[in-house]
């Protein structure tokens, strides 16, 4: 059965006798209990941008880690430039000219850009790290590929876009000819994405090969020269981006239609749920992280906050949740809650879907039913007086798992064992089941595949229709535009524009977010 795709690919390769830059044949990778990759075929021509798409957990990252030598395939062969190669470690892959930018950045925050870039292949002189030489080479790469990096800055001071360029610099520094980018655009705004694509074009012009993974199908069609689709661990086919629509791709991935976050009719009522007046959050040095923010969320309204990451959205969320000291007034349903503790705020009816589910949303080493209790320790059904009601908590977890399609064996499963999408659905289900007045949803569908994404959108829309106010923070501009009734743009800690999502394109929004639009620049 491996012959089918192989034959098809041979046809696709068509004329050229030139060997593929990367060819994976029949790759199978098993993890205990899971076959992450089964009999995967992948052919990438030199100098092309090759996209890999597939739902969450389809096995894309696993495949790329195999190609990067991070683990050995159980079966199958890897050919680089036509030669069969065994990759025992990333070091081998690096030596073979392969570099990888991981889905989650692999950077040491407390190191400088220079240290991060040279780590593992340091220039030395007389046994000592030759910083001057390293600096020179990084500057050179930075200039050649327009990466614009300062070698001596600490990485923790950089934004996501810069971090990504550091990752790319790492790879280029090692002389990679094949670049793997795992979901590089998930955290970028359109302008940054464009820059990235500009960088990629630069790279392919220099003859480099790029393999890149994304959930954003439009993007894929725009930038890729060819596409491979993976489903449930195996290749289901390849596609030509010029002739394939996003819808067709999505169907190939999941067999369902591409979801759209279109809002139905407006459900906004008069009563405000949340009012912020002059909320200011100080930061460690200098300019406040959140600067004099005022906004109102009404019942049945979704207020979207757009902004490049690191412009104060996270701090604003923290301030509303009481996780960070802030000046100004926070009013919930007519009551001033500025001085309240996080717990009191949650009890008063604030639901919270945090940005980073692993860090703030879950106890990974605890069973699902305990995760059901988290954040609702003082409210039924999970607790009775000072005690925990285990039976009720379990029962309610089962309900959430049913209602929200959380795929796991049972409420006693540890949360780590769930995939990201399922964890997210559990969190959303948990927050919804307390019937909050206000939901703070930060990146509710980040890294979640299309199926789960549409489910979460539906949930948010239903809740909104029932009168819940929602503050939505997202980096996904389609999501923001599609779900919000009102859009606020946040830049350097301030709300710089209020926009009407019904007449807005992502590109325009992106302009506001980066301060490129006139109004926004004026506001500064």
């Amino acid at each position, binding site marked *: 059965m491996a012959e089918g795709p192989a034959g098809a690919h041979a046809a696709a390769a068509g004329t050229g006798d030139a060997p593929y830059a990367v060819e994976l044949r029949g790759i199978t990778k098993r993890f205990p209990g899971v076959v992450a990759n089964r009999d995967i075929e992948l052919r990438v021509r030199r100098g092309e941008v090759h996209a890999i798409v597939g739902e969450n957990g389809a096995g894309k990252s696993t495949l790329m880690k195999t190609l990067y030598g991070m683990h050995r395939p159980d079966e199958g062969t890897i050919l680089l430039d036509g030669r069969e190669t065994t990759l025992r470690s990333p070091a081998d892959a690096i030596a073979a000219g392969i570099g990888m930018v991981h889905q989650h950045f*692999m*950077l*040491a925050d407390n190191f400088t850009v220079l240290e991060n870039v040279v*780590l593992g292949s340091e220039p030395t002189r007389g*046994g000592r*790290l030759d910083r001057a030489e390293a600096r020179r080479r990084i500057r050179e790469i930075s200039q050649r590929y327009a990466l614009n990096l300062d070698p001596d800055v600490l990485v923790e*001071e950089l934004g996501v*876009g810069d971090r990504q360029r550091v990752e790319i610099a790492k790879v280029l520094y090692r002389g990679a000819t094949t670049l793997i980018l795992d979901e590089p655009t998930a955290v970028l705004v359109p302008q940054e994405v464009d820059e990235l694509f500009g960088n990629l074009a630069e790279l392919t012009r220099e003859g480099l090969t790029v393999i890149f993974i994304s959930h954003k199908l439009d993007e894929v069609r725009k930038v890729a020269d060819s596409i491979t689709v993976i489903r449930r661990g195996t290749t289901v086919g390849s596609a030509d981006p010029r002739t394939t629509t996003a819808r067709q791709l999505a169907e190939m991935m999941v067999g369902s239609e591409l979801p759209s976050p279109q809002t139905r009719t407006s459900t906004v009522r008069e009563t405000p749920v949340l009012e912020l007046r002059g909320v200011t959050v100080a930061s460690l040095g200098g300019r406040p992280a959140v600067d004099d923010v005022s906004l109102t969320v009404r019942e049945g309204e979704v207020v979207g906050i757009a902004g490049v990451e690191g412009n104060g959205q996270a701090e604003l969320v923290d301030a509303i949740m009481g996780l960070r000291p802030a000046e100004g007034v926070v009013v919930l349903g007519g009551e001033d809650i500025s001085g309240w503790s996080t717990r009191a705020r949650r009890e008063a009816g604030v639901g919270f879907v945090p940005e980073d589910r692993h860090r703030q949303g879950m106890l990974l080493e605890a069973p699902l039913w305990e995760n059901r209790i988290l954040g609702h320790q003082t409210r039924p059904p999970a607790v009775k007086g000072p005690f925990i009601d285990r039976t009720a908590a379990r029962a309610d977890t089962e309900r959430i798992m049913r209602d929200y399609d959380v795929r796991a064996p049972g409420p006693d499963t540890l949360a780590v064992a769930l995939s990201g999408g399922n964890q997210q659905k559990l969190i959303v289900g948990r927050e919804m089941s307390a019937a909050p007045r206000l939901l703070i949803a930060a990146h509710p569908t980040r890294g979640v595949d299309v199926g789960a994404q549409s489910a979460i959108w539906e949930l948010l829309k239903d809740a909104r229709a029932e009168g819940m106010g929602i503050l939505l923070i997202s980096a996904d501009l389609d999501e923001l535009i599609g779900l919000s009734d009102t859009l606020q743009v946040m830049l350097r800690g301030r709300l710089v524009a209020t926009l009407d999502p019904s007449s807005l394109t992502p590109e325009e929004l992106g302009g506001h977010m980066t301060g*490129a639009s006139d109004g926004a620049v004026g506001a500064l």
Partner: protein
Amino acid sequence: MSTTAAPVTTSAPSRGPLTDLFLGGGTARRVTWIVVGLMLLLSVVRIISGEQALTSSSTFSTALLLAVPIGLAGLGGLFAERAGVVNIGLEGMMILGTWGAGWAGYQWGWAGAIVGGILFGAAGGLVHAIATVTFGVDHVVSGVAINILAGGLVRFLSELLYVDNPAGGGVTQSPALSSRPPSFSLPVLSDGPDLLGDLAGKEWFLVSDVAGLLRGVTSGVGVLTLIAILLVPISYVVLWRTAFGLRLRSCGENPAAADSLGVPVYRMKYIAVVISGGLAGLGGVALVFVANIFKEGQTGGRGFIGLAALIFGNWRPGGLAAGAGLFGFADGLQLRSRTAVVALLLLLAVLLLAVAVFQTVRGKYVQAVLAAAFAALSLVGFLTIEELPEGIVSFTPHLITLLVLSLASQRLRMPKADGLVYRRGES
């Protein structure tokens, strides 16, 4: 394109003024500044209280002597923790080091003792590495187990090898070392004509105090003290200025990233923890050299103090050396003169008063009042107390360490992945 980047501030984020003073920015300048300030303060306190012991050359040489084992243990901790392995087993490794030094030392002399101590300590480190790196055991757990094990093991080994040993020794001690380690003095200044010694004896304001300090750290310095002092800058260079050091530290900051760049994380951690054990063992050797013999219980918790010095010093060699020095100074004073300890109360009063003024300027009145109250209390203590009881005096160094730590409003920054078990491919 740079518009998207978060604004880049060139200066490091402030960590509170006192911390910055100790650990921040232009290190050399700050260190000089602190040393000058402290000497001035000590000098004033000495003149007022008449406690010559405060700044005598013998006090400083004792401080050095006492600081060496602690500092070496701390350096051991530095290597392990910079590579991401918390080493609470330093005490155990130090115990192994003392035994190894005693055992090798009575047979092959002082050089043998150094090798023996390092090897035994390193063996302890190896066990820790196997448990934490290969088996992924919680670092604290493994360290505690090693501490227990080391105690039992050295007793057992002594029983096995020293009872009925014609060379001497017994269940709690080794035979004496067969040769003594050499020691050095700075010619002319600290030796022979001993110019510094003369100056130190004059009881002149500041001049004698500085002379005391200089003579203290340059006369009769043992070979291991010399090694320990050298190891501080060497550790810095190795960890911060070489490729090896960068790789080692990357395992403590983000092992997954290091792994993805082909750094052999497990091997680096092994190397680091074994070095750590070796240095802790060397700390044990220092103790054996002092007594010329291995003696059970000799370490007396110095491994733990070394760990504290490491944290005190913000996981940096210079900082931990300062921590060890401070502890050594207070410990030496405590062992030498109970009355000098009372003079420390005056020092404390002055320091607290400075804090109070500083906090007032910053508008933090609660802290200011608190500091002033404690300053007054210390002053009253200084004026009324003649001599403190042994029980109270005995914990002077520990109390001072605790006080300095809580005064230096600290945002210490430990390596980010310190103490986290790293398993390949699991993040």
